[in-house]
């Protein structure tokens, strides 16, 4: 085995102003995207199925002799580990179930990899894994394999969880940005931004009193109901890191169409909106863990809203796809102006005053 030679290695990525990883590279915004596009995709090129990676979907869809399998993986490093409405455990199950579900797959089986820090209290680990079991049972998915590693005290944050999942894609269902068309309506399955604000409300240095709980939940059942009803869906995403704004920007970019949303139509619970206001955060950029953004054909929008609304009264039609301004997301503001909804650069920073 040859020794790594860092002298001859040149970074293919134009790291214009960072020579090392910064937190923003993991925040799901522009920095994350650049890392994937310039470093990871080229590094993994040149194999039979490498083209699948370039699609950069929530899950990869592989055609195995006529059966399409969706496969995905995600790692969960939330701090604090426990937050109002959940913990890192149910997040790790629901997040991977949702990545499969928005790819049009019925989630079947998950793997669980645990990286534990020396000194992590066993009772806390017990609560987290029991929560994972409950979440898996609730979502109707089986944990079938796993792995455990322990790192030195100080080298981890108690517990990091990786889950990978596979599912079978519904026959005949074609989802993706290439199927998004001008005229498609955009729906959200419930009020946004609760998860990110719930976690912030208990984060060291930013604690504030609130009753806001995370929206973490599995989405496979509600998505199945929509698809069973024959709704013509062109694309789905669960707007996690980077929030609804990042999701809409990615789809606008990948589809080559423009997106217009009506800011007032985007559902945000009053207490979440208030917390965003005093922290100086835009709810459109805050993470969700139990919401789906759905692009559906215009004739099916009301029917889709009815099904989503039966599950969560906060569901709403928030906008539509347009032929104008390709790749750009525009919001109509509450008082009748317009603005560009940009992809966040990195994590949002609470404002000074």
């Amino acid at each position, binding site marked *: 085995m040859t020794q790594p030679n860092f002298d001859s290695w040149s970074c293919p990525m134009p790291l214009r*102003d960072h020579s*090392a990883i910064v937190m923003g590279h993991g925040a799901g915004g522009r920095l994350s995207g650049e890392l994937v596009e310039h470093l990871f995709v080229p590094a993994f090129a040149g194999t039979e199925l490498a083209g699948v990676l370039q699609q950069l979907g929530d899950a990869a869809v592989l055609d195995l002799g006529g059966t399409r399998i969706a496969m995905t993986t995600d790692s969960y490093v939330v701090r604090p580990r426990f937050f109002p409405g959940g913990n890192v455990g149910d997040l790790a199950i629901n997040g991977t179930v949702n990545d499969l579900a928005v790819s049009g797959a019925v989630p079947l089986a998950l793997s669980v990899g645990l990286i534990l820090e020396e000194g992590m209290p066993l009772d806390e680990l017990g609560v987290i894994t029991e929560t994972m079991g409950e979440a898996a049972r609730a979502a109707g998915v089986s944990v079938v394999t796993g792995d455990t590693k322990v790192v030195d005290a100080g080298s981890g944050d108690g517990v990091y969880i990786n889950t990978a999942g596979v599912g079978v894609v519904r026959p005949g269902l074609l989802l993706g940005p290439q199927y998004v068309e001008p005229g498609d309506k955009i729906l959200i399955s419930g009020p946004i931004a609760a998860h990110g604000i719930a976690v912030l409300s208990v984060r060291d*240095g930013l604690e504030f009193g609130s009753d806001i709980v995370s929206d973490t939940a599995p989405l496979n059942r509600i998505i199945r109901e929509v698809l069973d009803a024959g709704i013509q869906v062109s694309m789905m995403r669960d707007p996690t890191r980077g929030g609804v704004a990042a999701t809409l920007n990615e789809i606008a970019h990948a589809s080559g169409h423009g997106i217009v949303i009506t800011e*007032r139509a985007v559902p945000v619970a009053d207490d979440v909106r208030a917390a965003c206001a005093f*922290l100086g955060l835009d709810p459109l950029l805050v993470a969700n863990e139990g919401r789906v953004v759905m692009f559906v054909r215009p004739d099916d929008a009301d029917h889709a809203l009815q099904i989503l609304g039966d599950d969560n009264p906060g569901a709403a039609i928030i906008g539509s796809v347009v032929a104008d*301004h390709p790749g750009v997301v525009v919001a109509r503001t509450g*008082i009748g102006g317009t603005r560009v909804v*940009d992809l966040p650069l990195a994590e949002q920073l609470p*404002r*000074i005053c």
Partner: protein
Amino acid sequence: MKYLDEFGDADLARKLLDDIAETTTQPWALMEVCGGQTHTIIRNGIDQLLPDEVELIHGPGCPVCVTPLETIDRALAIAARPDVIFCSFGDMIRVPGSTDDLLCIKSRGGDIRIVYSPLDAVRIAQQNPEKQVVFFGVGFETTAPANAMTVKLAKQQNLANFSLLVSHVLVPPAIRAIMDSPTSRVQGFLAAGHVCTVMGLSEYEPLVEQYQVPIVATGFEPLDVLEGIRRVVTQLEAGRAELDNAYPRAVTPEGNPVAQGVVREVFETCDRSWRGIGMIPQSGWRLNADYADFDAERRFDVLDIMTTESSLCRSGEVLQGLLKPNQCAAFGKECTPRSPLGAPMVSSEGACAAYYQFRRLEVTA
């Protein structure tokens, strides 16, 4: 929290806009001093909805933007020390210094913490007696009372491991500097409502009289900003120049005497450099002699760090209202939020960043 929908009501906004349009008979140039108001204006598209005659010039009221480069460089030098926990408001940590920002220092192992309340930094100092804890105390009069409280508490509690890196700036001297500038086009001001909440209104009387310019204390929600604009335009059209308060639910003439008291106890007025603008006499606060022991610049001996700004960046003209952000040659090219040349591109309250986030269509179209 009420007010969020009520003060963004579309019908009432329409009425105010119609009123402004009916009142306006000739071109007027207004400056909103505060970056929070700039953010509201751009985020809601208020400037697009105003009559063409009413021009808004975005003032130097973003504390992140006007903090001098050398103060940022001093902050970076202090934050890089292994014995230091460096605490800051969130949006200061991405402000570029000469070579780095605080995020880069953090990625190299620096202990940088975002706090929401300055008092959290004092708590961190209590909990970490073996470390030096420094709070980056920037801002206008709004943040000064809470920043002053940190050193007052630290002194009471004999917290020898706490210090404050101070770069406070003041609104009235900035208005004076803008009005004294021979190139200034500003004919009326929206004063920053939250600064007035702390300081009251009396400091603005002499400015109104000397420069014969309307000054209206204005809030931050869309209807607040529109009402402030309406009142300034109404005065200008009537040939009046008065001090007015369009934000009475938060601003009283005398301000907050308790907050003023703690500020007077801890700070003294000093000359201050503003990034992109230069030195404005008596426009800042620094720790006074009683609290000099808590001055981080002295404690860490960084006063010899002196730096100059990028020559491409024209933030000085932007901050004086002489140039719209998208009129700068570097805007959206060499200078983006991803790699900002100047501070107004960094903070979400900065005029350049607000234009970049919400107005790129006008540039790319």
